[in-house]
Structure formats: C-alpha cells, structure tokens
C-alpha cells in the first residue's frame, strides 16, 4: 500500500496490521432497549394505578380484589423502576467512556437525572415523572446509537 510522507514524498509500500484497542476482546453487548422496556413497564403500571377505580360495592371481597390489583401494580412498578435504574447504570458506567463526553457533554447530567427519575417513579405514582423518565431514556438511546454510528429509530413496545 503506497502512501505519502510528511515531506510529500511517496513512501515505500507497507503492510498494515489492524490491531484492537478495545475494552475487551470483543466488546460486550449493550443496548438501551433493556432500560426502555423497563421504563415502559414503569409508565404502564403508573397509568394503571392512576386509572384503577375504587370499588363501587364495599365488601371484604371487593376490597381484597382492589388491594390485590393495586398491590400488584405497585410491586411491578417498584421492580421495574429498580431494573430500569440498573440497566441505565450499566450503560453509564460500562459502555460510556470519557472520550464520549467530547461529543456529548450532557451525558452525565442526562444519566443522573434519569437515575433520579427511576427513584421518583418508585416512590410516587406520577404520570409526569414516568413520561420524563421515558424522555430521558430516549435521549440516552439517541446518544448511544450516535456513538455507535448507527441510525436506530426510537420505538416503543407499548
């Protein structure tokens, strides 16, 4: 392979070796989709909790059913919020590297806010915070695939 050196002279042919300078040998598999699915579950459970109507007939049976349904929604919201936070932290601490801050200086703030929104969605029943969590995950999705050099559309399962 011929080339030109700093003095404009043609170099002698050379052999090129492609060497790896990756984090591991191939890199691990990362995808913000895991956080997105968990975030959607959080939002779905939040909506279901807010929409669940109090039983019109007050009885032990109806109250048991109501509380059981509400408890299940709350339990799933709790679990998926924590799962979402874990998936985000893996991306933040393992996939993203200092070099990525050059192109995405908002990276740390975005993840910090997203993690806090996971916590907020756990302790509250807030449609607003659930939507803000999804917006934050979408921003992370966009950063992630920009770094990977691929155009991957933002899609939702729900």
């Amino acid at each position, binding site marked *: 392979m011929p080339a030109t050196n700093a*003095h404009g002279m043609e170099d002698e042919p050379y*052999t090129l070796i*492609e*060497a790896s*300078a990756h*984090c591991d040998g191939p*890199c691990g598999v990362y995808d913000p989709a895991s956080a997105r699915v968990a975030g959607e579950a959080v939002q779905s459970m939040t909506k279901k909790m807010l929409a669940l109507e109090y039983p019109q007939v007050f009885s032990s049976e109806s109250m048991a059913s109501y509380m059981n349904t509400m408890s299940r929604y709350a339990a799933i919201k709790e679990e998926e919020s924590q799962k979402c936070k874990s998936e985000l932290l893996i991306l933040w601490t*393992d996939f993203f*590297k200092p070099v990525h801050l050059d192109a995405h200086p908002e990276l740390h703030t975005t993840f910090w806010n997203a993690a806090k929104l996971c916590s907020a969605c756990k302790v509250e029943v807030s449609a607003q915070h659930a939507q803000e969590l999804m917006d934050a995950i979408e921003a992370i999705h966009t950063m992630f695939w920009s770094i990977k050099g691929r155009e991957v559309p933002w899609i939702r399962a729900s």
Partner: protein
Amino acid sequence: MSVVRVRISGDSMWPTYPDGTEFELLPIDSIQPSIGDVVLTTHPFHSDIQIVKRIQSIDDEMVFLVGDNPDPTASEDSHNFGKIHCDAILGVCVPREEHDD
C-alpha cells in the same frame, strides 16, 4: 526490510492515541522494549486478535500491559489477562508523526 504499520480500533489508548491512530511498527529484533513503550502483541486469550498496549512494568521477563484510557472499564489488558512473556511482544509502535520526525 518491508515497512509495517499498525492501525488501532477502539478507545483503550485514548486520550494519547484515539481510535484510528496509525503507528510504525519497529520489529522486536531491532529494538529492546522498555517501560513506557507502546507495543503490539497477540491477545493471550484470542490468538486471532492483535492488541496495542503500553508496558507498565517488566519483571523477570514478564510484562504488565495497560491501556492509556483512565476509565478502568475501557481497556482489556494485564489487569484482565495477566502478564505476558516478553517474547510475545511483536514490535514497538511509534506514532507515524513521531516516526517521520
């Protein structure tokens, strides 16, 4: 002797050498690797992958290799695969601009 160049992909040598940096490879029979040198070797666990890392220490012919990236998750090196024998070093990598000077 034919010229051999090495081009890295990945960020483990960032910020010193970003993704895509090209080096001139000085064959091992022409130079004695020393601490601080950037070297080419074969990944101890993946014989089909050649890697570029920096020599952090040499102890009784065993070499400890590291990446330059300050992020501890950004480089698979001797922290993961242990020390390599000095005979496994294929050459010393010199950045092309330094080599041209």
